[in-house]
């Protein structure tokens, strides 16, 4: 019974103290905010921001932090942090600037508490008990928002690279070219094959030239992917010609013992296209010797 009462009392006094802190920060708002901005400027954390930006942002951040302290709700801080992360990343503000700024604010708040309670160590310690968790929480929210934003951008770029990296091009009726550039991993090989098969269906291709000049290295896995692509295309009724196998890759393939006997291979892309022309029954004839210039005909 007695213990409960003390607990209640403690709760009550902690709520009071919390309100006291909030009032204190509200009261000293202008002073502390100016101090904060000064500290940040001194540390060079505000580079690239206009005077107006600094004013509005610092007011918002200051007030948001106090609301968090007052209510114990962090939704406002979270929304604001996410917005800031989005804009900050766009504007190229460094994470150091943002996190440094918040650490400075934490410092300013802390100092003002020390100043206020310097003669009452017990009260100071209770005030810090209330203030510290809130400050830490806000910092972690902001840091997480920034990490999340960066991750989102990385994901988008990865997606874009994947999209860009697998063009399937039609050069003639029934002939496709698939130039592969860069490292092939399982995921990419799969995507590549799927896209190739879809294009074979839509463009009714009968010959596909896969050029691997731009593939830096081949291991047994990659070779296996290639064989799979060739097999799958054959099931769709298309013949595959592989070109651009460098001496190193040829050596690796032979050393690995990959069975490529079923594959049509031709030295370079030009030879591959000529071979494909031959398979499709095309014959490329030069009408007259050109003079090496391409005329832009004016109509």
């Amino acid at each position: 019974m007695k213990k409960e009462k003390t607990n209640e009392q403690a709760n009550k006094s902690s709520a009071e103290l919390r309100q006291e802190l909030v009032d204190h920060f509200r009261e000293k708002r202008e002073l502390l905010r100016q101090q904060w901005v000064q500290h940040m400027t001194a540390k060079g954390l505000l580079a690239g921001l206009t005077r107006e930006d600094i004013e509005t942002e610092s007011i918002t951040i200051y007030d948001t932090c106090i609301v968090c302290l007052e209510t114990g709700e962090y939704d406002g801080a979270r929304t604001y942090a996410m917005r800031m992360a989005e804009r900050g990343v766009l504007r190229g503000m460094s994470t150091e600037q943002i996190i440094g700024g918040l650490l400075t604010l934490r410092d300013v708040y802390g100092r003002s508490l020390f100043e206020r309670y310097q003669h009452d160590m017990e009260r100071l310690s209770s005030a810090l008990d209330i203030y510290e968790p809130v400050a830490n929480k806000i910092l972690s929210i902001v840091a997480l928002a920034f990490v999340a934003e960066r991750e989102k951008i990385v994901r988008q770029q990865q997606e874009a690279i994947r999209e860009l990296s697998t063009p399937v091009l039609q050069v003639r009726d029934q002939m496709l070219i698939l130039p592969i550039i860069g490292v092939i991993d399982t995921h990419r090989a799969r995507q590549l094959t799927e896209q190739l098969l879809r294009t074979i269906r839509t463009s009714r291709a009968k010959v596909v030239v896969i050029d691997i000049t731009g593939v830096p290295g081949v291991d047994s896995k990659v070779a296996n992917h290639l064989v799979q692509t060739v097999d799958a295309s054959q099931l769709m009724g298309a013949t595959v010609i592989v070109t651009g196998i460098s001496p190193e890759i040829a050596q690796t393939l032979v050393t690995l013992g990959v069975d490529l006997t079923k594959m049509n291979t031709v030295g370079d892309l030009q030879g591959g296209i000529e071979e494909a022309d031959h398979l499709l029954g095309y014959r490329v004839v030069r009408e007259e010797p050109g003079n090496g210039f391409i005329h832009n005909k004016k109509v």
Partner: protein
Amino acid sequence: MSVPILKQGDYLIASVQSELSDADLLKLRDDLVSRVGEFRSRGVIVDVTILDVMDSFATRTLRSMAHMIMLRGAKTVIVGIQPEVAFSMVQLGLKLESVATALDLEEGLALLDSQTKGDTRRG
């Protein structure tokens, strides 16, 4: 459900209309192998456009069917394998090996035409 087999000139066309059970597949194989002799066909086309799955049994049956038909003196072309089916087949290591494949019925007919051009059985 059994598969209808159509006679089109010198060729037989078996167009799969629904997913096939193992029994249906065996029946298709037996029907085609006997019809080839009956109609003195030179080529057989099996259209599998409708199939979403080709398992090892289907692949093996089609492969053995093609070999049987070859022994009966005709060529077999499997047409209409969908991209997803082709991809899963190679991933599972299922192979049609020496059996000819083509994109669709039209390509299959063209392939048979070109392969049986020199055939002088009918003059």
